[in-house]
């Protein structure tokens, strides 16, 4: 009896032996903490059972206890690879509720900051794919560029990672000249480094063999699983919130939405690569637009809702009153129900806010793209090798903080 026959007979008798492998929650390949119990047939994955919630921090409950402006630090810690997008998404939600008109210059400044943070988010994801396929060079090389983006954020708001950038109604201060200089330098240096990184991996035979047809998902399944962002675009659906529901004047910018065909790891990698080039071009366009606007405007200056500058608080009676009112939660917040979404690093990042007129939100739900698309993971890795499961996960860019809320 040869081996094949014995396997078939075992299967018939229901005796086939599977082994179970526990991947996570503290596994170097899982970049964050999620557990997957894999049912393995040799090296083929038969079934996967993901368990999440290992850093559940109760954001939604916390948000119900905090005044609106204090929720910004919470959004920082959701997708911590692209905090500014989360911050500004939240600010825009509140502005929508309060019907605040934002000056054009502020909108363009926001676009610059958001696109820079999209680049930094995609740098992490793509270099980690390289790392997991055995190409550490790219990681060490592009992280230098990521530090440059962090330096720009530091100049603007003082923090690197969890930025708490901006306030309701605009930014907390004007972007200083030093930051503009650093952005200009970044725009010159980044394309050179990024081109080299692209040359290392994009047409690399080993990398392509490793990633093409690895963890694919069809467009139909992706939509049924409510995918969004680069992962959905890799499957071939050109859904981008920046185009479909433009916010912050995105309709004035000229950029293309890259789409893939197979929805596999290589497509996800390539979509992110191209998005970085597009973000770079958006930043350049936004800088040109900012130059045409009157200088010095950095906030909508709605004193009822955004904190006045400290000098005014100390010297001006009215500002002091507003300051007191906002901090003590005595401003009139309208009742209402708002949904606002932005294109986060991972997809449609939505804020569903119900206000009952009180100091804090009555209910705030975050539509967290990671949480929604990660549930397709068992389906995507079914029938593939164990090592493919690892790079599929890193190419999906699952951020534990966003996943577990």
């Amino acid at each position, binding site marked *: 009896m040869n081996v094949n026959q014995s396997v078939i007979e075992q299967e018939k008798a229901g005796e086939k032996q599977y082994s179970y492998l526990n991947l996570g929650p503290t596994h170097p390949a899982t970049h964050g903490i999620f557990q997957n119990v894999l049912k393995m047939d040799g090296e083929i994955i038969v079934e996967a059972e993901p368990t999440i919630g290992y850093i559940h921090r109760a954001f939604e409950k*916390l948000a119900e*206890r905090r005044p609106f402006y204090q929720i910004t630090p919470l959004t920082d810690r959701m997708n911590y690879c692209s905090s500014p997008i989360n911050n500004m998404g939240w600010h825009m939600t509140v502005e*929508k509720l309060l019907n605040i008109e934002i000056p054009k210059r502020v909108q363009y400044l926001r676009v610059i900051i958001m696109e820079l943070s999209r680049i930094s988010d995609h740098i992490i994801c793509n270099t980690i794919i390289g790392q997991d396929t055995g190409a550490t060079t790219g990681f060490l090389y592009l992280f230098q560029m990521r530090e440059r983006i962090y330096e720009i954020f530091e100049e603007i708001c003082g923090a690197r990672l969890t930025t708490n950038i901006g306030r309701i109604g605009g930014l907390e201060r004007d972007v200083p000249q030093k930051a503009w200089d650093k952005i200009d330098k970044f725009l010159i240096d980044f394309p050179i480094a990024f081109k080299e990184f692209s040359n290392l991996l994009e047409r690399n035979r080993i990398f392509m063999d490793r990633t093409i047809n690895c963890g694919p998902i069809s467009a139909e399944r992706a*939509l*049924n*699983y409510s995918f969004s962002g680069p992962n959905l675009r890799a499957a071939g*659906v050109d859904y981008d919130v920046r185009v479909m529901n433009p916010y912050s004047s995105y309709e004035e910018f000229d950029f293309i939405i890259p789409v893939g065909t197979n929805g596999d790891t290589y497509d996800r990698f390539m979509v992110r690569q191209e998005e970085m080039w597009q973000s770079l071009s958006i930043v350049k366009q936004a800088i040109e637009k900012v130059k045409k606007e009157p200088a010095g405007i950095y906030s909508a200056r709605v004193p009822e809702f955004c904190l006045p500058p400290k000098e005014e608080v100390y010297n001006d009676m009215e500002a002091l009153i507003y300051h007191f009112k906002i901090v003590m939660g005595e401003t009139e917040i309208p009742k209402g129900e708002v*949904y606002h979404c932005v294109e986060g690093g991972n997809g449609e990042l939505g804020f569903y806010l119900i206000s009952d007129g009180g100091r804090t939100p009555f*209910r705030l*739900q975050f539509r967290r793209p990671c949480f929604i698309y990660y549930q397709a993971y068992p389906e995507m890795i079914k029938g593939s090798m164990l090592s493919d499961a690892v790079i599929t996960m890193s190419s999906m860019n699952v951020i534990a903080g966003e996943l577990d809320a």
Partner: protein
Amino acid sequence: MEGSTQDNVISALKEKYEDQILHMDTPYNFLTISLKKEKIVEIIQYLYNHPDTKLQYLTTLCGIHYPELNQIAVMYQLHNLATNTRVRLKIFLSAENPVTPTITPIFSGANWLERETYDFYGVNFVGHPNLKRILNVEDMIIFPLRKEYPLEDQRREDKNDTMFGR
């Protein structure tokens, strides 16, 4: 443009399920429809298939607790990616025993969202393939996002309430 596609949804819904509509509103230009809870899955399936609406993308799903009414609302937010129509559907369940059928046969993406809603509010989605807690530890007995439960861990002893009021 925005208005006309929303009208499509309203007329399609009125065609067959007019008696199910409790309330209709468009706060901040976002069509919000409150429905009776009995036929929610049927209606979502109908809006999924109807050629005028084709709401085939589930954006999000969540629970909302109204302690004064003693009700838990479940909010479904649907999206038609072709015409860019967004619709919010709401049903209201009693807080003592919130039960509603699952929509996982229509949207695979609803699986974890429903589990999360169960975890936070205790909404029992009948027919769900794997309805157990997702974010919290499995031996938890409360449903933490209901308004009556406090945010902080009550077993903490190191916090002095006389100095730091909660």
